[in-house]
């Protein structure tokens, strides 16, 4: 019984099977590439609709106000400090 069970499975000739698999692999890769482009294009679309000149004008008028406000400057400083510390810790953990 064990001898019969341990006998190799019958050899199945390729007959173009591998080629068919690789054709499908290529099709899948192509589909993924197109999908990536579509997603990128869709993600970029809202950016094209933004009123960029108006936003940049408003931002440039706001920046001096932010810079001159003590509490706001402190908050931005704290955020930057937290982000730097997080980076530092992550870097150290990666080295360990």
């Amino acid at each position, binding site marked *: 019984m064990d001898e019969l069970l*341990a006998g190799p499975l019958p*050899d199945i000739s390729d007959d173009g099977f591998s080629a068919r698999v690789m054709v499908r692999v290529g099709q899948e890769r192509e589909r993924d590439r197109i999908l990536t482009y579509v997603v990128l294009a869709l993600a970029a679309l809202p950016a094209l609709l933004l009123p960029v000149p108006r936003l940049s004008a408003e931002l440039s008028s706001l920046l001096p106000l932010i810079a001159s406000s003590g509490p706001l400057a402190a908050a931005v400083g704290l955020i930057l400090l937290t982000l730097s510390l997080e980076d530092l810790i992550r870097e150290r953990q990666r080295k360990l």
Partner: protein
Amino acid sequence: MSEGELEARAADGDDVAFGALVRLHQSKLRGFLLRMARGDHALADDLAQDTFLEAHRKIAGFRSEGSFAGWLYAIGYSRYLMTARRRKLEPLDDLDRPADAPEPVTASAARLDLEKAMATLPAAERAALTLCFALGLSHEEAAVRLAMPLGTLKSHVARGRSKLKAMLSDWAPAS
């Protein structure tokens, strides 16, 4: 190029290397799935194609714990189970009665009868017996690949083996 090098290259996105792995493993994977699909060639080949496609998508995450072949069998087995569930091909758990009509066995027909008898076993027993005997995986690796505890795998092997023994002895000519 060694199989390990092919695996490493394929994991880096080299489709030529992946193609070589497909050619290398197609026969055994299709044989395994043919047994799982109880001799349905079309289903076995569809499953084998899907298995290779899934392997291609996931190969970057393949770690060399165990063999590449074992990893493929695991994907193939889970694909088979999904299809079997969807198409209601399983279970055939109640196998106390022997397979259809007993037939006499000649030495040359032994393999054919093994396949017939094997087809009556539940999927887990077919998979466990095929991986451990015909495809030479250790019990430990087969258990990992079939996602079952080692003890469960061993009982599937033992149960399947004794059912086969009973069925094949029923078919054997009386001496």
